[in-house]
């Protein structure tokens, strides 16, 4: 077994699905000869040809429109956003077209959208956003957000095989930082299933994406005093409510952590659902640690203030524990 990075895991997953299924093809800006802005598809043109690895004009709305059209003819397109921030340029095709087709006239739209996401890389307001909540509100879309190479590979494969439009949020900060040994076997990670990233008895941290390793670090800082359980949601839509509620019933305390800003984030819905389903099991308020409600600022000093980090998460855990 060889150790691979998060970004290599995405590449491997894509490659295996393209080898397995002729109907899988890729489209996006600079993904061909150049191999994509982050080199996820480096070498793919040589292996699969220009017809299956399409360099597109600069046109996100058409990238999605064409993905929908091809998916309706039983192809399995995987569209790459150069940065997830640019998805807004193709918003209508995703939220009104792709998301609503099956509900309206019963046709499946098996397409995947790769969304290089998130901050901590000093990209400024337009190359750092967490855009998952924009789509969380749209019935018909599935949303996944891996935090490690295993899930990155298993979820990209599951997304491609899913019959619905799946937005795959790959975190840029994790690309080359997260490493793992993976077997060469064909495995999937089921969409809709979270995972326990760290078992604990005292308090549950619910998180996903880049905040999983960050929360684990915070939890290990507090190890001697508080036994923290960390749940990696992995799938944002659908949410694994069984796993979430099970953990809350065990620890009776919930802290939600995400890199996205606080207001209207995934955490707001999580909090509401936990209150609805397990209010009497809680012995403290549900709290959130998230980015502050501003655009993502550019300067490192500002961005650091803006985003959660292990210290802020540890403080959040401590305060909830002390409640």
């Amino acid at each position, binding site marked *: 077994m060889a150790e691979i990075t998060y970004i290599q895991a995405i590449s491997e997953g894509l490659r295996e699905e393209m080898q397995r299924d002729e109907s899988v093809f890729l489209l996006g*800006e*600079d993904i061909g*000869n*150049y191999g994509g*802005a982050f080199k996820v598809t480096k070498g793919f043109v040589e292996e699969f040809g220009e017809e299956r690895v399409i*360099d597109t*004009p*600069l*046109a*996100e*709305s*058409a990238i999605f429109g064409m993905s929908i059209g091809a998916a309706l003819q039983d192809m399995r397109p995987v569209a790459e956003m*150069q940065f997830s*921030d*640019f998805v*807004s*340029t193709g918003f209508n095709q995703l939220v009104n077209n792709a998301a609503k087709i099956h509900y309206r006239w019963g046709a499946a739209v098996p397409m995947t959208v790769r969304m290089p996401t998130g901050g901590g890389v*000093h*990209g*400024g*307001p*337009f*190359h750092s956003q967490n855009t998952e909540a924009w789509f969380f509100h749209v019935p018909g879309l599935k949303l996944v957000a891996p935090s490690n190479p295993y899930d990155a590979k298993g979820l990209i494969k599951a997304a491609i095989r899913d019959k619905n439009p799946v937005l795959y949020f790959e975190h840029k900060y994790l690309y080359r930082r997260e490493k793992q040994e993976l077997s060469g076997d064909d495995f999937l990670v089921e969409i809709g299933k979270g995972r326990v990233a760290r078992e604990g008895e005292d308090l549950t941290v619910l998180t996903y994406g880049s905040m999983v390793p960050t929360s684990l670090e915070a939890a290990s800082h507090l190890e001697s005093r508080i036994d923290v359980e960390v749940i990696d949601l992995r799938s944002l839509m659908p949410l694994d409510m069984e796993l979430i509620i099970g953990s809350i019933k065990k620890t009776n305390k919930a802290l939600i952590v995400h890199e996205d800003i606080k207001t209207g984030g995934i955490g707001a819905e999580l909090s509401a659902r936990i209150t609805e389903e397990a209010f009497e099991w809680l012995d403290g308020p549900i709290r959130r640690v998230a980015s*502050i*409600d*501003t*655009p993502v*600022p*550019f*300067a*490192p*000093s*500002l*961005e*650091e*203030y*803006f985003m959660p980090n292990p210290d802020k998460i540890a403080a959040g855990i401590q305060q909830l524990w002390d409640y």
Partner: protein
Amino acid sequence: MTQAELSELVKRSEFTPVAGLSAEDCVTLYYYMQLTRTFEMRLASFYRQGKMVGGVYLGTGNEATSVGATYTLEDRDILAPTHRDIGAHFVKGESLRAMALQLLGRAEGPTGGKDNGLHQGNKEINTLGMISHLGAMISVAAGAALASKIKKSGQVAIHFIGDGTSSIGDFHEGLNFASVMELPVVYIIENNQYAYSTPNSKQYACDWIAQRAHGFDMPGIVVDGTDVVEMYRVTKWAVERARRGEGPALIESQTMRMRGHSEHDSADYVPQKVMEKWEDKDPIDILKNYLRDWGVLTDVTREQIDEQIESEVEKAFEYALDAPVPEGPEAANGVYAR
């Protein structure tokens, strides 16, 4: 350097203005183009030294386009620059110091470190700050021109658009709307042959992007964007026409992105032959030859200007490098106007 200082240096032998440009104008154009190059080469070396945060996008090869077109504008006019138009900012009146502070993400800079690159707007000199999403500023520039029309202020807007950017839906919406309303806006395609790694052959199927102007019922003109005099002449014509109320125009400048998409990119996808062909068309060399042939500036005087520019750029960066970065809590401020 000020206009007066530059004028001092001009050899005023019997020079007949070209394209309405006096000898002083030609020297001023040289100043701004050389300033752009010098400033940008400094950024490139800062990038290599790890002094820059994030990507560095340079306009090498684009100097004549950006500077020549913007030089047609009056102070009151509106400029909507894009990511390779540092020269346009300078011509419109952005200071070197403000630019250096901005690009280094300093507290005192125009965005206070909140945004990066050439994203700053400046109400005082009437520049509109771009967002990264390409194409978004096309209709914004039209909107500024609409305000001019409503207010009868006589202002004209110029907006620069990349070749790649011409593929996005906003391009059609903006140009069509501007034409329907006969707005005083001039669109300039900076056709530098590539959009990141994507060559024009994968971007559009027509010969010239300017052909599309026909469909919007506006003039569409292709210009040699490495020749600042040509760039000025054609843009001036379009700006005057727009000012007279005759509507928008689309000018396609043919030029080359002489470096990678950003400084991390070696651009090895550009064939060597193509690069060499364009190296012979360096916009600054072309203007230098004009100035020499026309007897406007001796090589010695030109070198004096170059030295002056070096020291101005040096000073701006010296100041900016020493300037403080923003305090973290400043991140929370400014979301809403008060």
